[in-house]
């Protein structure tokens, strides 16, 4: 069990008096891409927010064997969790370069400039527009910037909340290819929330399906993609 990077048991969370998650169990092993599927309002975003300490939660959450169930968001970043929230996770008033720089806020080493330069190499659009406000980038560029910003903290676990939301299909396909690349090249473990099940399962190792805050199904990506019930409910076929 030591290869479980994230191990969540009996997770409960909600907003004030409203309980949204009713005891979820799931885990992500080191190096994996795991996808969480579910309909609108199923509690996917809430799950990620609970893991990254954005909201109060109960249950057991362990990161590399250490309990993080009572840690707040800023401390979890230091523990190695990076969260790209739903919508554009950029800081729109800041320049592209400052977005990357602020992503490295918790770091004190002297490789930050080199890392920023690397992102500019990898995504020349970001380099060309490094002095422009992040808010002026297109939707896909902002999503990529948000991911790059999250990776600037050199996380061990990356949480992605519906990265495909509001983007054109061709851009989404490209984005997911890059996620797979990052996972391979940097070895970053990923927990991805998606409604676009087809695409997400395509790059994932395993998947979970939540319904109304409870675990509905789980299994290897290949199995989920072929499961008839899930195909009907979530793949629209």
């Amino acid at each position, binding site marked *: 069990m030591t290869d479980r990077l994230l191990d969540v048991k009996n997770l409960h969370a909600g907003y004030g008096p409203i309980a949204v998650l009713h005891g979820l169990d799931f885990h992500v092993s080191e190096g994996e891409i795991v996808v969480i599927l579910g309909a609108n309002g199923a509690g996917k975003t809430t799950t990620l927010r609970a893991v990254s300490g954005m909201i109060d939660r109960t249950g057991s959450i362990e990161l590399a064997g250490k309990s993080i169930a009572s840690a707040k968001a800023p401390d979890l*970043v230091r523990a190695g969790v990076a969260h790209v929230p739903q919508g554009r996770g950029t*800081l729109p*008033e800041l320049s592209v370069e400052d977005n990357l*720089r*602020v992503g490295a806020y918790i770091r004190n080493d002297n490789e930050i400039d080199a890392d920023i330069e690397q992102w500019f190499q990898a995504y020349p659009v970001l380099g060309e527009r490094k002095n422009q406000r992040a808010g002026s980038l297109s939707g896909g560029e902002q999503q990529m910037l948000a991911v790059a910003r999250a990776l600037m903290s050199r996380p061990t676990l990356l949480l992605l909340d519906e990265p495909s939301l509001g983007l054109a299909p061709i851009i989404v396909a490209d984005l997911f290819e890059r996620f797979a690349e990052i996972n391979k090249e940097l070895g970053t473990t990923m927990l991805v929330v998606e409604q676009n099940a087809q695409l997400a399962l395509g790059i994932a190792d395993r998947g979970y399906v939540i319904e109304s805050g409870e675990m509905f199904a789980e299994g290897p990506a290949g199995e989920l993609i072929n499961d008839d019930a899930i195909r009907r409910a979530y793949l629209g076929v």
Partner: protein
Amino acid sequence: MDLFLQRIFDGLSNGATYALIAMALVMIFKATTLINFAQGEFAMFGGFIVLVLATEQGLPMWIAVIVGMLISAVLAAGIERTLIRPFDPADHLPLVIITLGLFLAINAIAGIVWRFDPRAFPELFPSGKAMSIAGATLSWYTVFTMITILVVAGGLTLLLNKTKVGLAFRAVSSNLESSELVGIKVGPTLQFGWAIAAAVGTLGVSVFVASPFRQLEPQVMVTGLIFAVSAAALGGLDSLGGAILGGLAIGLVQSIAVPYLGVPTELSLLAAVVVLLLVLLFKPSGLFGTPQVERV
């Protein structure tokens, strides 16, 4: 014509103080869209600290100003930690009430400790006139107040754009949640804003009462705050550069428009309020602010 020029000079030196207090207001507004209604009183209190350091502790004037700025920064940081942070930054009502409570309390404490009689403030700048232009006197005081706001604006710009804490402050101003998600602790970052604001305000009051024509007393910023608020709104409540231009503009309106329209000096305050109303009517985001003001 010489009179006109003279009034421009006078307007600029008044405007410099409004600009400094307006910058202090902007520092807090930028991060939380909150107006600190006690900002003027913070500054007045800081002015008294400077006065005590200079006259009772015998510190050289500029050292006294710098130490006074540091002390007021620490005090403001303490107030932020104990009285402001416990509340949800998005819920303005309790926060505004706290700042009004601070307004009353700080003003009263200053009145109790230092009494209400005006006190002469040691000179901060060389006295006398720097030069005559077309018959108008440009005093050293005016020259140095202008230099001061440029130095402060430059310093703040460097602080915000070139330091890590400045980066964190700008991030928090842009989006609270995303800032937490990169590891920024929002509370201490806002506290930094309060501290800087208090320091700038203290400098503002010190410069204001360093004029040979003014003295320091607990009520000194009660109307000064109104001018500063109008200045900040005119410039756009979240723009430091706007605060400077807004401050100078309000200073100029006060010294040029008011006498030329033949209205009495009492009305300079009204002029500031009218500017405020016009800005809200026609351009609520001010001249340089981010147009994010929500209409109901």
